[in-house]
């Protein structure tokens, strides 16, 4: 992959100007941090407001009569019940009930808007297109950028009148955008979709607001981990079902009555009989972080694996999540983590590690 050509977002020039340290991520050159560093960016997001470029994520519109019903073929989320101006989190599943991707879907009144993971858009978009009836069309939006402005001061800087998971068209500094009151940090904030050619002007405006600091993928990762939110490819994959992943809440009640989506049978089986393993929060004792792929042990036997782990700057201690055998998934259960050939004591812990502060 050494000669792989990395894609850039419309903010690439701005990232470099701000001193962003660019790294490859899902085929894009993205800033992992700015000169302030991951710790400072993370803490600033929790204290005030941080601006993230998430333009690498896949945006698309689904248009036409029956778009919501068509999407429901592939997801157990209740898309049809989604009211105009509302957004929700969902999962795309395969025939085995495995998670193809996690995504956001919004009802913009007359069309649905989707945001999928950068690393999965080449899988998701053809998959969605493959189930669409005549008259429903998926329209990828590669000419739109996505900015996430996150933190407790965002609502004061850009009042929208929306509640958590509300979405709508508005203008920021005269620039038309589609903003949702959501994010992936555990904080209140906005995710802002904007035309690529106006992305830099918008980003510069947002950075000029008092208390707003640029933050990179490093802080985004530690923030979402403290918030107990999954990262596709780490915590979720095609061999993991929503029951194991503790994401049953993302499945609509109506959908769990009808079982009318791809992968419904294996998911129903896991729900009825209990999954073999469960995603849990894990707190290592002491200060040493346990990273992804660390083996989880109990009584000398391997009973699971860490899928995301690091140091939680706001928690002030290492935090992790991973999958463990179901009988070991209760909060407080003692486990050992095999870190550099040493057994590091740890406990199953409730998530989020840092309380969510959404504007519900």
């Amino acid at each position, binding site marked *: 992959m050494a000669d792989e050509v990395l894609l850039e977002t419309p903010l690439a020039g701005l990232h470099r100007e701000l001193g962003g340290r660019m790294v490859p991520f899902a085929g894009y050159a993205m800033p992992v941090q700015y000169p302030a*560093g991951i*710790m400072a960016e993370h803490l600033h997001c929790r204290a005030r407001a941080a601006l993230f470029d998430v333009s690498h994520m896949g945006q698309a519109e689904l248009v036409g009569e029956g778009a919501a019903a068509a999407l429901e073929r592939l997801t157990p989320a209740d898309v049809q019940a989604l009211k105009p101006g509302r957004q929700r989190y969902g999962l795309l599943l395969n025939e085995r009930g495995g998670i193809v991707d996690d995504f956001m879907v919004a009802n913009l009144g007359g069309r649905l808007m989707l945001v999928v993971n950068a690393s999965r858009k080449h899988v998701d978009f053809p998959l969605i297109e493959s189930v669409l009836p005549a008259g429903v069309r998926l329209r990828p939006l590669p000419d739109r950028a996505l900015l996430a402005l996150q933190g407790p001061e965002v609502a004061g800087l850009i009042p929208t009148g929306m509640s958590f998971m509300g979405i709508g068209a508005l203008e920021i500094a005269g620039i038309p955008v589609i903003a949702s009151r959501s994010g992936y940090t555990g904080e209140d904030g906005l995710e802002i979709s904007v035309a690529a050619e106006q992305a830099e002007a918008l980003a510069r405006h947002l950075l000029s607001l008092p208390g707003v600091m640029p933050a990179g993928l*490093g802080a985004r990762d*530690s923030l979402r981990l403290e918030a107990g939110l999954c990262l596709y490819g780490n915590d979720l994959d095609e061999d993991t079902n929503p029951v194991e992943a503790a994401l049953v809440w993302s499945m609509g009640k109506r959908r769990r009555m009808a079982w009318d989506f791809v992968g419904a049978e294996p998911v129903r089986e896991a729900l009825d009989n209990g999954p073999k393993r469960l995603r849990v929060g894990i707190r290592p004792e002491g*200060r040493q*972080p346990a990273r992804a792929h660390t083996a989880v042990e109990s009584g000398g036997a391997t009973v699971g694996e860490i899928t995301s782990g690091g*140091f939680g*700057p706001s928690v002030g201690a*290492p935090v992790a999540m991973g999958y463990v055998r179901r009988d070991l998934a209760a909060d407080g259960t003692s486990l050992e983590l095999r870190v550099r050939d040493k057994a590091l004591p740890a406990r199953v812990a409730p998530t989020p590690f840092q309380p969510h502060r959404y504007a519900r």
Partner: protein
Amino acid sequence: MTMKFTKDHEWLRFEGEAATVGITDHAQNALGDVVFVDLPEPGREVQAGEAIAVVESVKAASDVYAPVTGKIVEVNAALVDNPGLVNQAPTGEGWFFRIAPEGELPDGLMDADAYASHVESLA
């Protein structure tokens, strides 16, 4: 008091019978905020090139290698409670351990100029 450097971004400062060892400013900057340091046991005999300490930042874990063969005579206990010293003062209060070298020093140790060129060649 001459300072020497390794290609793995450690520095050594020879003081009397022992050398103080830490990671370079370039290394701490590349790692980012250090949150944990695992140090070797004092008294341990180590071989040049052996991984004997671990430094973890928010983002990544990295090995620290013995720059010379010898015996660990002291470790910087202050790093246990305050690993951020590695970022604040990498060649001062953020030192890792003191080692009493045994036998010949390895050939690959660089002076400051050679190390600066080495770092440049990585960019």
